[in-house]
């Protein structure tokens, strides 16, 4: 993990040292990135930005401000993950229970992921405003819209992965469908659900960050936008928000992994994701 970070940082600095400062053309397209300090600041400059005051003349440092933004974003992401996870599992159970629902709903579930979040934000804002819900729930809802998808697909796959003999066994006990779900299908699906939740965890952060921009919530996404506007004077500042967002993604991922370690502690070790 640390090694991966070091390699990424090394690659960045290496390209910065060797690449053309003004970029380059390939077949007339300007696609080779510029390496000047405005486009690719040194990594130490980005890190140094954390210590600078956020607004000139005030004593709140960027890191303090960023901590506040991150905490706000993290809470919304968590809410988004919980909401998305519940929605995802619920939908998958419905689809596993009723073939009709699976056939009718699955195309729409897939289609839903092609709608850009930004296009959806105003609708969610209007609805949330009508129902008098606090603004952070809007962002959580949008994050859930992004995060439920991998959970649905993974859970559905898991619920359908149960060996026929186990289902026959439950049948031989004259167990109802819901009992079979509770005692067999759901526990058997857990190793499938966990990777789905891991994808959902990072998707939820992305969802919140993007929603913040559309909804004007003061989290990491908002910080990225406002810092991005002062690229000319302080090009490295925007990267503090990038780092914060990346870190949030890792924290969310870590939370799911910790939950996994707990839930899976008694399972055979070869099921590892």
């Amino acid at each position, binding site marked *: 993990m640390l090694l991966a970070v070091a390699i990424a940082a090394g690659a960045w600095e290496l390209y910065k040292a060797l690449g053309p400062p003004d970029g380059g053309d390939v077949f007339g397209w300007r696609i080779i990135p510029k390496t000047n300090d405005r486009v690719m600041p040194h990594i130490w400059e980005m890190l140094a930005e954390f210590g600078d005051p956020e607004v000139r003349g005030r004593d709140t440092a960027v890191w303090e401000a960023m901590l506040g933004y991150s905490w706000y974003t993290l809470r919304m992401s968590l809410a988004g993950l919980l909401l998305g996870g519940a929605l995802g599992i619920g939908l998958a159970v419905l689809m596993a229970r009723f073939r009709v629902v699976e056939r009718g709903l699955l195309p729409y579930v897939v289609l839903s992921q092609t709608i850009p979040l930004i296009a959806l934000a105003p609708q969610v804002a209007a609805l949330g405003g009508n129902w008098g819900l606090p603004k952070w729930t809007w962002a959580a809802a949008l994050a859930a819209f992004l995060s439920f998808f991998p959970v649905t697909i993974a859970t559905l796959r898991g619920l359908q992965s149960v060996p026929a003999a*186990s289902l*026959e066994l439950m049948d*031989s006990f*004259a167990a109802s469908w819901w009992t079979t779900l509770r005692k067999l299908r759901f*526990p*058997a699906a*857990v190793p499938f659900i966990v990777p789905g939740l891991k994808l959902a965890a990072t998707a939820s952060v992305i969802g919140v960050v993007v929603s913040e921009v559309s909804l004007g919530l003061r989290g990491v996404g908002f910080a990225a936008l406002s810092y991005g506007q002062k690229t000319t004077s302080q090009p490295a500042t925007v990267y503090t928000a990038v780092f914060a967002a990346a870190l949030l993604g890792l924290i969310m991922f870590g939370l799911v992994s910790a939950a996994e370690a707990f839930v899976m502690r008694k*399972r055979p070790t070869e099921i590892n994701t």
Partner: protein
Amino acid sequence: MTDTAQPVHPSVDARGVAMSFNQGTAEQVDALVDVDLRIESGAFVSLIGPSGCGKSTLLRLIANLIEPTAGQVMVNGKDAAQARLDQDYGMAFQQSGLFDWRTVTKNIELPLELKGWGKAERSARAAEMLELVKLADRGNHMPWQLSGGQQQRIAIARALAAHPPLLLMDEPFGALDEMTREHMQSELLDICAAANTTVVFVTHSIPEAVYLSTQVVVMSAGPGRITDVIDVDLGRTRDEDTREDDGFYKKVTEVREALRGGDHERSTHRSEDR
């Protein structure tokens, strides 16, 4: 054996049973035709035959996991569907089918849980069953920590936990090595004698069928049907010596010839088809 507890009904009574899959379509498969089978309470009956003879299908019909397309299956004097609802039988498969996320004890308790037994009753019964299958010290293990033979014994314990009068087994030792297999066969006879259950046992091993059974039902394929029922009178107590007994060999030969007869019939059928 306590004869007073024996029901007057036969354990299994199948009459004119037929089973076709994809009935009425071009892919119709006649898995079983015209099966009559009566299994008396206390018997150990093996169903043996080549692949496709419908032996597993017949077992699933008795278990009411599938419904016959014709005929009727009675279990303990009731309709098979009612017998399933009443949990009149326990079932064990080739794959032990133990749940990875439950301890051995919790696996045995599963059918009791579904029947709504109390916690204390459940764990007392599970301990009893563990004793019976000689794995008393493994209750807190997870299934994947046990060997294949041990897992299969737990599956049998689970099948018998709720005191079912009938045990249905679908090649339960099929995945075990020969040594473990013979050992498990002797164990199974002991367990069934202790639990006082009737057994219907699907296998494709002739010695296994002869060693275990009081009756061997020989089946043949294309379409699946019963071609012979052979009584095996080797006495109720059987041990390792039984396997080297002359009577044992004779029965093995008899079953083998009955199987070959069915096979022969099938090959002539096939040549007629062509």
